[in-house]
């Protein structure tokens, strides 16, 4: 993701969280999807059956492609807000 020439947009402070063992930074209060996209991470999991790579697709909570795992629960990256130290795992390939 790019903020490009958008110096006129003021964002909240940066915080860090863990995705699949790697530290990623994002702005406090934004969604996991936005922070990962900004960090250049789009491949979030592999589909069951076909095993093909998947990432955020509808970005509005309908397609379920961006599911990630937090505290053992499957949640949508596009509807979950990041917080300092949040630990996110990839959904295991089935």
């Amino acid at each position, binding site marked *: *993701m*790019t*903020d*490009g*020439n*958008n110096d*006129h*947009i*003021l*964002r*909240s402070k940066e915080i860090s969280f863990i995705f699949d063992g790697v530290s990623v930074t*994002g*702005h*406090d*209060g*934004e*969604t996991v999807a*936005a922070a990962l*996209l*900004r960090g*250049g991470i*789009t*491949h*979030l999991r592999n*589909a*069951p*059956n*076909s*095993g*093909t*790579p*998947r*990432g*955020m*697709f*509808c*970005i*509005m*909570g*309908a*397609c*379920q*492609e961006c*599911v990630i795992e937090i505290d053992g*629960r*499957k949640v949508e990256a*596009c*509807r979950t*807000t990041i917080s300092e130290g949040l630990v996110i795992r990839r959904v295991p390939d089935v």
Partner: protein
Amino acid sequence: MFDAIVIGAGPAGANAAIILSENGLKTALIDEQRDAGGQVWRVKSKSILKAPITEAVEQGDALRDRLKSSNVTAKFNCRVWHIERQENGHWQLSVVGDSEKKLTTKALIIATGAQERVIPVPGWTLPGVFGLAGATALFKEHMMAPMRRTIVAGNGPLLFYVASETLRLGGRVSAVISLNSRMDWLKSLPAMLSNPALIGQGLKWIFTLYKNRIPIYWQHAIKAVEGENTVDGVTICKVDQDWAPVAGTDQYIHGENLCYGQGLMPAVEATRLAGADHHYDEKLGGWVPTIDQWGRTSMSGLYACGDNAGIYGALAAPIRGSLAAEAVCEDAGINLKKRVDSKKLKAAKNFGLAATALTIPRSGLEALITDETEVCRCEGIIRQEIDFEIKTGAQSPNAIKSGTRCGMGPCGGRYCMEAIALITQHRTRKTREEIGLPTARPPLRPVTIDDISDDLDYDDLPIPGVSPL
């Protein structure tokens, strides 16, 4: 118990809820987002502390302010997963994200908006492919454009909005690939002239593309998305009048993102689950609940307004919300003072219809779905398997679903049923109305067992006595 519940806090639903509450009805408004606005006036992320005010932000903020100063009980971050009619004619909603698991109401307004039509092509499941509407969510909520180069493809006006907004937010655009021809657009202009302001906005988008020398490929389609784990580029081809690919016209375009979609369809899962009659009308974006001019469905106490009752767009949505609120009030014996400006509604509807007309699926589209294309993203079902089901006797989405598991995954069939219908139509020559839709079933959104089970205390479980032997 509420007098009225509205599902969906976009411009139609939120407006309906405010009017109902102004007229003394105990009203709740439910939405899965964190505030009102829907997709078109989507609320900004909390991470944006300051940003330039746009018209959409102004309109959204005005709606949110009106809602806050009203008596509406707003339930945000709340999802409805089941709708049942009770014996007394009231409605019971099963929800997650609220302190209550069940909510009941006398009148139910469904204002769930639109969902995106996306035609499957090889590689459309790759990370880096986003829905066109999905891209707009990113712009509005996070004020971000995809990083590196973006290809924008599909049809309708959303293409040009997404491309120009990507540039405005500092992104790069490789190309715009439009199924529509220039002639399609010229034909739709007279109807769109009913709203010169929006025409001006559209011209501004296209001007931005010309100014930035972004190539626009008119009457072209994405033939395949290329890349191993993420998008590297796309193969495009020319299409004929019916949008079928023309052989020998392939070209390769580099880009790391693809924003891709073929228009909006009414999101009818909720009205279908409630049991209302629906019919197919391509001019309105597809399957719609059958409603009267106010939004009354075939079931008493059930109303529909906004894009889920036909894609007329954001201009018409608030007016349609007012109409549905009028109907609820009238049916409850309340005489409403304000009446809707029907001339304004007609102009708004005409504009919406002209935009939707550019996205009506044409017969050639199914030829873009190759044998090996994953049609059902969730279950990984390829076209060949669907064709086989049809060849061996399946004539309906229900039959194809039972045979292949197509549409049984977490998305609930939202992203494959349109393609399945197009393939079935091609193979059987039946009409969309004849082909129909699969049976509506809960949950409307995926839920966990925790969410749907009642509170359980193990001590309450009846334990049978020890067997006499």
